[in-house]
């Protein structure tokens, strides 16, 4: 049993006021799938749990020219198959069905998964590769933060006092010449991955790499860009160039220094970074050229 106050605001502004009022002791709970574990293990010991269960307006998925906006309370199961209706979200679709199990995904929310900031989260890796931003509401209005700046380390975010994550925005890109993909390796279905890699590529008219992003999960506190791998590919021919992709994989692997954990030793994670980087890039290129 957890001994704390449980508050149920009904609007974003009320939630933000409560968060500001109770300061560091206040934690947000949405679907409760991450929070329950943090509480059980004593990793989070809030004085006040602010449930956003009754806060309305955080459950929509809307597409515009700028991109797709996903409400913080959208459950992971609702995102399963999202790549079919919103093709720019295929990389996110790659991962949602691999998170935990059906029952958990019925409750787990996208916002909760991001705010937990688990170092192995596939969701933040995929969203980072997609250059997603998050919208934070607070007493002084709203601000937008790139997701890679929002997740600052293991179980740490840039959310300030009194701020609530309300939306995730995945920007549009030209599906005819760009795509993203995610590849992961887990020891068991439903597990956090040993390593996850997200990749985004956009191609110019002659099939060269115009832009590329490679994001690696569970090799550091927060998802990390494999800058050396990206540099190897940017501006170069990558379609059908398996050698370049393998090299990018090796470069990515050469620049991570993951810690050992009970799932795997560091050395093995490094091996996986190489393989998964190559595979994620291959898939992204295949989608961009399909």
């Amino acid at each position, binding site marked *: 049993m957890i001994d704390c106050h449980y508050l149920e605001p009904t609007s974003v502004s009320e939630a933000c006021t409560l968060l500001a009022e109770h300061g560091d002791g206040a934690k947000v709970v949405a679907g409760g799938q991450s929070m329950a574990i943090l509480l059980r293990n004593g990793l989070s010991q809030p004085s006040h749990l602010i449930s956003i269960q009754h806060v309305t307006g955080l459950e929509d998925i809307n597409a515009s020219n700028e991109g797709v906006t996903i409400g913080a309370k959208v459950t992971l199961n609702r995102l399963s198959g999202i790549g079919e209706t919103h093709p720019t979200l295929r990389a996110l679709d790659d991962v949602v069905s691999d998170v935990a199990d059906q029952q958990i995904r019925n409750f787990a929310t996208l916002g909760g998964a991001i705010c937990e900031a688990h170092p192995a989260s596939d969701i933040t890796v995929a969203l980072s590769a997609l250059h997603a931003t998050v919208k934070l509401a607070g007493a002084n209005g709203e601000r937008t933060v790139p997701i890679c700046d929002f997740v600052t380390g293991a179980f740490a975010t840039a959310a300030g006092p009194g701020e609530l994550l309300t939306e995730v925005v995945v920007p549009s890109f030209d599906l005819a010449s760009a795509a993203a993909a995610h590849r992961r390796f887990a*020891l068991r279905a439903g597990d956090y991955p040993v390593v996850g890699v997200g990749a985004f590529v956009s191609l110019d008219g002659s099939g060269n790499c115009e832009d590329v992003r490679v994001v690696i999960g569970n090799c550091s506190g927060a998802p990390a860009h494999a800058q050396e791998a990206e540099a190897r590919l940017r501006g170069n021919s990558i379609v059908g160039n398996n050698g370049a992709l393998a090299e990018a994989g090796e470069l990515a692997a050469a620049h991570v220094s993951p810690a050992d954990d009970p799932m795997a030793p560091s050395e093995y994670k490094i091996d996986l970074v190489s393989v998964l980087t190559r595979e994620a890039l291959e898939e992204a290129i295949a989608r961009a050229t399909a």
Partner: protein
Amino acid sequence: MAVVGTSTKRIDGIEKVTGTAEFTTDIVLPRMIHAKLKRSPYAHAKILGIDTSKAEQMPGVRAVITAADLPDVRLGVLTLDEHLLAHDKTRLVGEPVAAVAADTPEIARAACEQIEVQYEELPPLFDPEEAIRLDPPVVLHEEYEEYEKLLEIADMDERPPNLWQAYRIRHGDMDAAFKKAEDEGGHVIENRYATGYVHTACMEPHGAVAQWSSDGSLTLWAGGQSPYIARDGLAKALDLSPSKVRVIVPFVGGAFGGKLTVKEGAIAAALARKARRPVKIILTRAEDLSATAARTPFIFDIKDAVTKDGILIGRKVTSILWGGGYSGEGILKPIFSTHLYPGSYRLAALWVDSYGVYTNRVSGGALRGYGCAESAWAVETQMDIIARKCDIDAVELRINNLLTEGERTAITMPAHAFSAHECLTKCADAIEWGTPSESLESPWYRGKGIALGNKYSFAPTASSTELKVHEDASCELRTSAVDLGQGAYTILTQIVADEFGIEIDQVKLVTPDTAITPFDHVAGSSRQTFHTGNATRMACDDAKSQIRTLAAPKLEADPDDLDVSGGRIFVKGSPEQSIEVEDLFVVEMLAGKRPADVEVIGKATWEVTASPHDPNTGQGEEPMAYMGHGAQAAEVEVNVETGQVRIRKFVSAIDVGKAMNPQGVEMQNYGGGCMGIGIALHEDMCFDANGEMTNASLMDYKIPSIVEMPLNEYMESIIVEVPHQHGPYGAKGAGEIVVVPTSPAIGNAIYDAIGVRIWDQPLTPEKVLKAWKEKKASGNGSG
């Protein structure tokens, strides 16, 4: 209609599926309070003092105990080396040091945090090969020589101070075997194997509810494997006469060897006595995984002498069981694991030196296959290596080395109901042995592997049952056999229904309660169908004999000429001359009827003796009750970029003598196969440098899910039925043999796929990948 041999529904199925089955955690008694344990954070430390005053003053706290509140007795299975609460030292992280009972589990937990224990840290010892030295860096049990021991170990010039078990086998001329192999163009093949740390990880964690009566007697509810072992353990720990202890076993959510003793229950009982209130204790998942007995690792050094034609002529083994802080239920593993060294094979010479040592980690316990599942890993991988070395098919090589019915193994176990050949060939056929696996696209490779296995069932042992026949001809079986999920209650019900020719629902079971149900040794060692099954048949015979005697005057026949079936008693050969069983229970009085003063209770004890084995030679007579046989084969897919191993196809062929309930056997084949796959590929308790388990949750301790299993159509159960002369209806147990050959079958398949050997379990992706990279770097295989 025969009921035995048919797949009747589980008699506990509806209760379990609808959630009405009562488990220990469901028990709530008036005034009941809750216990939590204060555990040692150190692997090895002296306890200088314990201050419980703050905890005692907390509101809601009803009792706090330490070793000082308990009788100063050491407990154990055969070497009594462990106090209920740490006495002067702690020898593993998580060892209970004190306990609190309070109004809620939360208060009890908070109170544990307020208990101040002053420790003096001692250097821990984790390495078994350091531990076994004559001059080890650390000694765990300074007073070992004074401990009470119920088992003689092998003679040693000088006992290494951390050693608690030594057993030798000396059979045949070992030197001559190696010389012959070398002189005559044969092979001497030597390898080192290791198994890992595996936990039973039952769905139901350990727990108990304890209640004292005003006459000083104790009742304990605990989901364990043996109410009588629990009763005697509680009596010893609390200095009571066993007659003052009553143990009731509710439904059990899995045990697999992990619920043989009730340490937590005894602590709850001590708290209940002090608090004068009933006390419940339920371990958390983390406590259950990290601080209850586990299957601790073995190290095997095995050296085989083989002729050039692939005939095994000698085997030499040195093994060390990596025990923990206490000898625990692992005490017999160094002995019982030796049954696999001959296994089903003829061996002219077998020398074994088998040891168990203390280290500052979790104590060694039982887990499905008790020693055999571990030694099979070494032996059956070795057989695959021998086959490849001799260029003989691995199935053929095994067949060429098999014993024949009536022979004795190198450790004097008679080969009876010897079905190894049948299990092996049926298994081979099902996996299409001899047809190479299909080639896959890079980076995937496929391969097949096979292994044989045995599982003894120990002796001496006994089971008693009582069978009461009611006025309505229904039967009530009183048994202390425990249904752990294996289906024991269903099978015993089937036996009674069969013996009396009645329907399943006319049989009622009175489940384990030492105040009511007679002695049964344990739901372990695959013994319930064999031993309790025999006792049940005998009790039925006894009851039927009583019925015949009662019926004889009414039918004007000799009791021996009568038969009982379907609720009727009839004269053999003339079924029309009969009366109803219920007629026995009424007498005519004046013009009416009244109940007769009749009681029909059949009783029986089935006992199997065993001759003592010389711990210096391993020789004796009839060492075990029976020996089970089985073979398993796997087809695997290996990814050489990630090291991932997928089981594409899995076949399990086991001999059960007679399938009492074929669907039940099938479930053992599937369930055991899944557990075996988990042990082979996934499960691994990890420890940090301080000896603390680092993956004590079901998120981090990787029990595979159904997704990691082969698809239904690729999972095959084969039931072999070679009747055993002493088994009820010829039956043998099925519970453990199903996990014995799994690991080597998978390991051998990995070799077939990519040509690498992993010597230590589990065969994780990182080990497979590392071995593959080493093979590529050296340009050849490593096995």
